[in-house]
């Protein structure tokens, strides 16, 4: 069935992402804080604490450093949402990656526009983070095309085998940069979730009230998008079983990221850049050579 040339499943995917993603993202963020507290022997906040934080930020007084900053943060949110819509509609993965990067660039501009030394430093570090993960993410797209002959996410749902069967090393490399993308320790360089680093909250230092709430909302959308990318590796033409497998794998990876977050000290940016590029080079090249020979 088609509406205006789009399949009904694409439309359902887009609407589900728009409406449900922030709520799931919020609950996952709460789960993160709960599990982190558990790992540190604490009781921790309530599960819905990120939601209360969000509501609180909306209720605060408005004080924006300059008008450009708000515009950039809005563009960040819009492009992240757009990227997620392309992905969950089963659209072009490469396009999804590029739109997501554009969103990340607007976030960096928002950090720079506040002209605070802390936010400047955070924005510089965010730039390095983008540089670190981008090659690996592009290799995911290349590997995906070589394995399936298509950049379309929807085509994976009619594939005989899940993507991870063809791209085992690229999957591992992707998990490595996923930690950078989710800004989890040891790569919480541009902004830490809590003030456990020397530039406090880095790129968001000068954001407050509603602007900060928008950043939180974007991060929830981002989390779901990235977990979607993770789930993409394990779906095949298996109907609802494939869907369940994808969700379970995404949740296990989320838990794994929290575990990493709590068990590693922060890297220096050089270590992050060098290691991420080495992982991309080795995992990507070996996997692509393997694809050429099967």
């Amino acid at each position: 069935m088609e509406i205006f040339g789009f399949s009904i499943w694409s439309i359902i995917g887009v609407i589900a992402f728009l409406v449900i993603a922030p709520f799931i993202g919020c609950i996952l963020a709460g789960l993160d804080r709960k599990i982190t507290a558990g790992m540190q022997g604490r009781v921790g906040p309530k599960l819905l604490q990120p939601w209360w934080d969000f509501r609180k930020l909306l209720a605060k007084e408005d004080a924006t450093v300059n008008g450009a900053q708000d515009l950039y943060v809005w563009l960040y949110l819009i492009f992240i949402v757009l990227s997620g819509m392309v992905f969950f509609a089963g659209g072009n993965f490469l396009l999804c990656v590029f739109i997501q990067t554009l969103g990340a660039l607007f976030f960096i501009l928002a950090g720079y526009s506040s002209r605070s030394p802390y936010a400047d430093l955070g924005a510089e570090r965010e730039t390095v983070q983008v540089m670190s993960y981008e090659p690996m993410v592009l290799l995911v797209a290349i590997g995906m095309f070589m394995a399936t002959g298509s950049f379309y996410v929807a085509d994976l749902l009619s594939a005989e085998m899940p993507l991870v069967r063809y791209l085992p090393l690229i999957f591992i490399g992707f998990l490595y940069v996923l930690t950078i993308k989710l800004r989890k320790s040891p790569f919480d360089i541009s902004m830490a979730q809590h003030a456990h680093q020397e530039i406090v909250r880095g790129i968001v230092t000068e954001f407050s009230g509603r602007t900060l709430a928008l950043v939180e909302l974007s991060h929830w959308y981002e989390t779901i998008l990235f977990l979607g990318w993770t789930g993409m590796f394990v779906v095949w033409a298996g109907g609802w079983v494939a869907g369940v497998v994808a969700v379970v794998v995404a949740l296990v990876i989320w838990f794994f990221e929290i575990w990493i977050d709590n068990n590693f000290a922060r890297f220096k940016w050089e270590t992050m850049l060098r290691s991420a590029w080495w992982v991309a080079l080795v995992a990507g090249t070996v996997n692509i050579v393997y694809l050429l020979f099967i």
Partner: protein
Amino acid sequence: MSNVGKSPWIIHYDGSSCNGCDIEVLAALTPLYDAERFGVVNTGNPKHADIFVVTGGINDQNAPVVKQIYDQMLEPKVVVACGACACGGGVYQTCYNILGGVDTVIPVDAYVPGCAIKPESILDAVIAGVGILDEKAKAMKMNPADKDRSEKDASTGAHASVADVDDGTNADAE
């Protein structure tokens, strides 16, 4: 029901404290007392914080700093003076350089006695602060004009004091 009190983010500033109270403030955030149960996050950033936890007395050197941190915080905000020194100068009250408690420079909403203050009292104070925070948020809702900082600055001249106390400490904020 107000939502502000469910997420009290704090900023801690050490005035001229002997560090006794500061250690206790940190203790309140450790797993034993776990202030995050109440949603408390130690932000270290006045622009994100709702509750300003001050320890130690006020002297000429830190008065502009305390004032500036207070001015940078967004409404609704609450100030909690932690420990005898922050409440009224404590044992240093009669020293030549001490102006007195925190209330000599900014309005204080909750006074917490103790030398040094106990982590339990700090948690009590934060919870008391949450109540005041909720009241202030409710008052803000009644008067939506309070929400726009730029208008308020223009009409009443409030916050202009940030510029008055520019002694180099403002460099970071600008």
